[in-house]
C-alpha cells in the first residue's frame, strides 16, 4: 500500500520512476510531482511504470491531468510499461489512444524526437 517516486533528467526529458500502488490515497503525491516538474519548465516527461503494481481510476486521472498540463506547453507525457496487467487497464479504458506507451525509456525518448 505504498508509492515510491523518483525522477532524473535524461537528455531534455524528465524521467519519473513510479513504484508501488497509484490509488486514491497515493495519487495526490504523483499529481504534486508532475505539477512541480511542469512548473519548473520540464515539458517532456516520461513516466516509467515498470514497477507499478496497481493503478486505479484516480491514478489514471492524475496521468491524464499531467498529459493535459504538458500539452498546454506543447510538451509530451509518454509511458514506459511492459506489464500486461497494467497495459490491460489502458486498453480497456481506451487510453492507449491517448498515451504513447513504450517498452523502454530510451525508446520513448527516441520516438518523441523522431516525430
Amino acid at each position, binding site marked *: 500500500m505504498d508509492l515510491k517516486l523518483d525522477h532524473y533528467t535524461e537528455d531534455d526529458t524528465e524521467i519519473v520512476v513510479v513504484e508501488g500502488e497509484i490509488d*486514491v490515497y497515493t495519487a495526490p503525491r504523483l*499529481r504534486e510531482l508532475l505539477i512541480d516538474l511542469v512548473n519548473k519548465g520540464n515539458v517532456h516527461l516520461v513516466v516509467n511504470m515498470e514497477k507499478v*503494481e*496497481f493503478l486505479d*481510476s*484516480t491514478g*489514471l*486521472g*492524475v496521468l*491524464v*491531468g499531467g498529459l*493535459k498540463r504538458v500539452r498546454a506547453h506543447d510538451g509530451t507525457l509518454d509511458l514506459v510499461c511492459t506489464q500486461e*496487467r497494467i497495459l*490491460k487497464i489502458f*486498453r*480497456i*479504458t*481506451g*487510453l492507449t*489512444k*491517448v498515451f504513447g506507451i513504450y517498452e523502454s525509456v530510451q525508446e520513448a525518448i527516441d520516438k518523441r524526437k523522431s516525430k
Partner: protein
Amino acid sequence: MTATDPENTGPRKAGPADGAAVSAHVSVEPADILLIEDDAQDAFLVEELLADTPLDSRITWVPTLGDARKHLTGFRGCVLLDLNLPDASGLGLLREVLTAVESAAVVVLTGLHDEHEGIAAVAAGAQDYLVKGQVDGSLLARSLRYSIERQRADENARQLREAEMYARENMRLERGLLPQVLLDSSPLSHLSFYRPGRKRAIVGGDFFDAVQKDGTTHIVIGDVSGHGPDEAALGVSLRIAWRALVMGGVAEERLLPALEEILISERAQEEMYATLCQTSLDVEREQARIRLLGHPPPLLITSGEVKEILAVPRPPLGVFPEDESDVEEVAFPRGSTLLFYTDGLVDAFDGGPPDRLEVHGLRRILIDVLDRGTSLTDLPGQVVDEAERHNGGPLQDDVAMLLMTYGEQA
C-alpha cells in the same frame, strides 16, 4: 444447574442476557484518571480518597498543564483538573484541556470560595465540578464514574447522529444515481441491481438509466472516476443530464458529445472523468448500437450462450473530447438479454491478487450461474455472490448492474 452459581465469573456468563454479569463487568473495569494538580497534598488526598472506594482506578498525576499535554491526546478516561495551575488557570485552561482530549470526560476541582468557577466550567463543557475540602471518597468516585459513563453516552450519540446523516445522504444520492427507468411502453423488460462495496461510508459515482424515445430504448451505465461526495454528485448530474438530452429528442450520435460538454462544465476538478457504456436498442431492426467510453463491454446472452461484445473503447468522457466515431452494432434478437455492469464487478480478484476477474472471468461466472438453471431475476445477485467468492470476500467497490431483455424475463 441452578441460577444461583456462586462463581459467577465464567466468560460464558458474560452474555447480554445475563444482567448480573453485565453490571459486574462494568463496575470492575478500571477507570483511567489523569490528575492535573500542582498541590502535592491535594493530589495525595485524592489518591487516598479513591483508595478507600470500590472504584478501581489508575491514577496518573501531573503537576502542570505543560506536563499534562503529552498525556491528553487520545486519552479516554477522566481528567481531574485543578483550575489553578502555575502555568494556566480558569476557563482558558479548561478549554485547552477539552480541545486536547476530545473524547475524555473532564471534572474540575475548585477552591471553597471559587464555586462559581465550577458552575461556569460545567457550562463550558466539563462533566462535573467538585469543591476541595467538601468531597469524600464515595462522592469523588461516583462523580468520576458518572462522568466517564456520560461522556461515553455523549460520544455514542454523536457517532450515531453522524452515521444517520451518512445513511440519509447515501439514500439521497442513490436515488439520484440509480433511478426508476422510463420504459413504460417498451417491449423490453429490465432488472436493476446495486450492491455497495466495503471500502467506505459514502456511495461511489456508479449510475445508470434507461429511457425509451421514438421506438428506440437508450441505456447508459457509467462510473465517475475516484470516490467521494463530489464524484457521487457529478454522477447524479450526468445521469439527469443524459435523461434530459434523450427526452429532449437529441439525436443518438449527439448524446455523448453533449454529455461531455456538460461534464466538463460541471466537474469540481479538471481531472474528473467518467467511464460509460451507452447502448441504443432498436427492436424493429433487432439491433443494438453500443458506444464504449473507457468502460468494459456489456455481455450478450442469447439462447443460453454468453458473448463478450468486442467493442473497442474510446477514452473516457471528459479526457480529450473528440468527435463521435466508433459504434459497435450487434444483433439483438427477441429473447436476448444484455447485461450491463460497472467495473467494480470485473475488478474483483480472481482467486487472489494480482489476478483480476476481468471481462472473460465475468463471462465464465455467468455461464456457470446460467448452467445451474438460475432465472434472470436471480442472476445479478448470484453473479455478485460468485464474484465475491473468487475475490475472497466482499468486493472493494460498488457494483451496479442492469439487465435488458427483449421480451419477458424468464
